[in-house]
């Protein structure tokens, strides 16, 4: 069975090792976050239960998590994420970081329309 065949694997338990996927122990870039997001997004869409493993990761920052995990709240309901997604291999401090990113993302996607409509003309006045 190959995990690269989209739509074939359904309701499977799949573990994504972040350090393998991005080829680095440093979770510090938007691009790498996007790579993780793209993978998880598709797998969850296909109905799988996904565990994101941060094993061997030595540095994790919120900018990465905003993209990798925060964005999922734009694709799925909170309930779907709670049911289908798990994280592992995190220290308690990093778990706190994930929690704050998730809380921010929930708030953001709840009000996304009003945030995005708030773009203003550049005003140079102080």
């Amino acid at each position, binding site marked *: 069975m190959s995990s690269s065949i989209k739509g074939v694997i359904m309701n499977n338990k799949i573990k994504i090792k972040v350090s393998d996927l991005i080829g680095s122990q440093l979770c510090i870039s938007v691009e790498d976050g996007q790579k993780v997001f793209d993978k998880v997004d598709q797998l969850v869409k296909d109905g799988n239960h996904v565990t994101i493993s941060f094993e061997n990761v030595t540095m994790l920052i919120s*900018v990465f998590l*905003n993209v990798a995990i925060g964005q999922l709240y734009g694709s799925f309901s909170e309930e779907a994420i709670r049911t289908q997604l798990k994280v592992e291999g995190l220290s308690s*401090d990093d778990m706190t970081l994930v929690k704050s990113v998730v809380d921010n*993302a929930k708030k953001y996607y709840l009000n996304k329309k009003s945030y995005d409509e*708030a773009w203003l003309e*550049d005003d140079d006045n*102080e």
Partner: protein
Amino acid sequence: MQVNVGSIKSDFNGFDSISDIAEKTKTLYFDSIDLNFTNCSFFEANMVAPLYTVVANLRDNINDVSILSVPPAVYTILKKNKFLTVFNLPELIDINQTTLPFKIFKLNSGDQFNDYLETYMKGKGIPEMSEALNKHFLQNLFEIFLNASIHSKSKSGVFVCGQFFPQKHRLDFTIADAGVGIRENVRRYTGDAKLDSCESIKWALTEGHTTKTGNHPGGLGLKLIKDFIQKNNGKLQIISRYGYYEFLSNGETFQKMNNDFPGTCINIEINTEDKSSYCLESELKSEDVF
């Protein structure tokens, strides 16, 4: 056109002087600018990061920027920290290892920033930290670096420089970008076009407040660094457009600058005379609390 560069320190006047140079040159396009250092008797090396925001904008407008008449002592400093290499002038080996050299990081080059910190942060007098705190401290530096890349919306990159001043018992570490400034992001996010630069910095520093970029939210992430700076008796400065923010152990101040700084700069000053060992509160053992 010639513009004078006076003496520059990591303080309100230093940042305002750099902003003044930016104001004087901001309309130039496809021109030649000489930065004349004749009246510069000292230049704190880390301040080349904010100075480069001016140079980056000038170069972005296809101007030719040169350096003129740098007094020998200042010339040595700028050669040692590799700033002069961006003007195709030679560098000087830093035998005393007191510089964190000037470097322009392309956007999305977090890996290189990691290498830079690993190479240059050691042996610069930073107080001892537990492994967990050190990790958090580095996490905060990455947040600042990445925020500079993302929020600035500037293609010029992120400018980093630092200097250990053993005599003054200070280590200054400075990250700057030539971007739109905090004001722009906070105005857009809050929908309040009347917010000035100081109010915007204040908003961004409030815990739980974040501005978004594209599809995802972000933030300033300075809480742990502020906690550390307070205990260490150091200093944190944020300069963004007209806003100047300074945090010291005895309080914080916001001041409006006279000139528009062309981007955002964060300077972290660590008191290297501090011989304490630090750890996270969550790491405290019972014997540590009494």
